[in-house]
């Protein structure tokens, strides 16, 4: 990632980790540490859509929320537009909030049922009324503009969320996110609660808005096809770590990591000629409380070697924007067997 200039990056994370403490046992007597996100370095360029893919419980939502500072990281630094935002607070954080928004997965629970649509979309605008020098008339104008852009009818503004279908509610959620003209939006599984015929509508809308507002997206999803179709670059996550990074055009053509390969092989394909050979993984994703040693994927990996059990693989560059953390691709192959100290990553 050295060839990327700092100034091109909108978002950059430096070894961020987020651990949660969890009390278990009789009368909550024991403490467990859930290592939800560990040592993650990602970057998002200006105007880029970056996909984040992984199975449930792998920490993708935690990572998205940590970047937005909705959750504070345990370790590491987050940079937004070149500024370190890891520990800012008060006025500075408030200013930042204007530039970062989120679209939630569930359009039913993420909209206040007692607010009219007008109010939902304008809430951020009211909040920043003084900074943006807005009055009620200009806010109304912005709201009706947003309604039009998100494909909702004008009379929607005086209705309540329950009067809309799932797809329309997701449009309201998107309208709320773009109201303040942000630079960066985290889309946290924005399509997974929607019907098949509605998904493609919303995906098209997200792409149009991105061009119009010059947005950068972090697109979190477990659906590989949808993520590949909207993203420029994709990170694959497993148990709180990034295990592969690749341009989305390479995802179905040239994946490296055995986990990525297995994920892709599991995608159902309608055309029987295009069906890939299934790589069936054994078992389920382990709990983030007890992450396996070495490469976290080794207990399920069909190609696991001795070294995978003990040493964490390095994150290696394997092509243009293509990185992988897997011992199979460590060219210094002798090191698999003899090295003792080269595996610090």
């Amino acid at each position, binding site marked *: 990632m050295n060839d990327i200039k700092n100034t091109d990056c909108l978002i950059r994370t430096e070894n961020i980790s987020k651990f949660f403490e969890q009390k278990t046992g009789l009368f909550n007597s024991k403490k467990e540490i859930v290592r939800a996100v560990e040592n993650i370095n990602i970057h998002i360029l200006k105007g880029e859509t970056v996909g984040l893919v992984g199975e449930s419980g792998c920490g993708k939502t935690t990572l998205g929320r940590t970047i937005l500072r909705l959750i504070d990281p345990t370790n590491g630094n987050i940079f937004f537009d070149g500024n370190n935002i890891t520990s800012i607070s008060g006025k500075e954080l408030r200013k930042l909030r204007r530039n970062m928004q989120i679209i939630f997965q569930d359009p039913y629970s993420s909209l206040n049922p007692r607010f009219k649509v007008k109010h939902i979309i304008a809430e951020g605008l009211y909040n920043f009324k003084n900074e943006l020098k807005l009055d009620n008339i200009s806010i109304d104008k912005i709201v009706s503009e947003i309604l039009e852009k998100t494909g909702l009818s004008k009379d929607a503004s005086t209705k309540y969320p329950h009067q809309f*279908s799932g797809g329309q509610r997701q449009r309201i959620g998107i309208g709320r996110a773009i109201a303040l003209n942000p630079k960066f939006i985290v889309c946290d599984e924005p399509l997974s609660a929607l019907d*098949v015929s509605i998904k493609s*509508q919303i995906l*098209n809308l997200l792409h149009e808005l991105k061009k119009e507002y010059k947005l950068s997206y972090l697109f979190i999803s477990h659906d*590989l*096809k949808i993520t590949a179709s909207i993203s420029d670059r994709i990170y694959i996550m497993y148990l709180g770590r990034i295990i592969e990074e690749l341009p989305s055009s390479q995802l179905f053509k040239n994946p490296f990591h055995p986990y990525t390969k297995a994920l892709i*092989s599991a995608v159902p394909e309608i*055309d*029987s000629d295009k069906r890939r050979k299934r790589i069936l993984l054994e078992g389920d994703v382990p709990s983030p409380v007890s992450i396996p040693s070495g490469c976290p994927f080794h207990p399920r990996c069909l190609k696991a070697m001795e070294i995978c059990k003990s040493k964490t693989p390095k994150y290696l560059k394997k092509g243009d924007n293509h990185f992988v953390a897997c011992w199979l691709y460590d060219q210094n192959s002798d090191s698999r067997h003899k090295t003792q100290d080269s595996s610090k990553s």
Partner: protein
Amino acid sequence: MQKQDKLKDNDIILEIKDLHTYFYNNSKNPVKAVEGINLTLYKKEVLGIVGESGCGKSLTARSILKILPTGAKIAQGSIFFNGEDILTLKQKRLNEIRGKMISMIFQEPSSYLNPVLTVGFQVSETYTAHFPNDKKNALKKTIQIFKEVGIPDPSKRIKNYPHELSGGQKQRVMTAMALINNPDIIIADEPTTSLDVTVQAQIIKLFKDLLKNHSSSIIFITHDLPLVSEIADRIMVMYAGMNVEEAPTKELISKPLHPYTKSLLESIPPITEKWQKLKTIEGQVPDPSEKPAGCPFHPRCIYAEKDCSTKKPYMIEVEKGHYTSCYHYDKI
């Protein structure tokens, strides 16, 4: 798995004729959630039912076992299982059929398993309910069926409670429960929707393996057309409580004869190098209480003509085994 040529009338195991299931909640007018479904299921066949949420696919399945949600009632129609009309059966006979001859796998295993009973007990209960005099064998049977559905270390696992198992394992337990009596029909209602893709692939593999060893027919309900195309022999597409197309899987995919099926197939994102605007179906899925007149799909259909908004369509057999409910199928 194409056995279309061999399908004969005496191989029919389940036949639904003109089924209407309505919701009679607070209002005077019933909500017509299922409106005139006809369905035929053959022995040893996998039938996929595809549709979006609210199209009545789950309600159709639940009507077969008469396990309807509150407020719903079967208003009209008949369901013949091995020659008997389920809808006219007495409770006692119905209980014999449920779980023994027709069983069901639900979408969310965690909410269908009792959290305070061991999974082994819950599975063996399904057996002892039908064979009360054979309690001795129940445990043995349970362990055997756990092994078959791919639960490792079955003699230990039967002592586990549902919360101790992962989502994929719970779905295997549900499958074991549905299979233990070797039923004639298994109804799987979105069995993989709440699971991750890698686990989904495991469950689909399990279903395929089970088909080899069991003589059950499967009704596989889902909204995921690519997924069901991997396992089903025939697919039935539903929209707004009606059946809009029915055909052998390969034919339905290669030559859809209903605009809705065609749009569904086209809205699957293709694997491309660069962003391509996706084809969409404009508009929303209609509210079941305010269905459009005529063909329910006509407000969203690009092929719609004047008569579509007035004439109610019915299923036409265009080719052998390939039915569509579109008058203008020749334009597609």
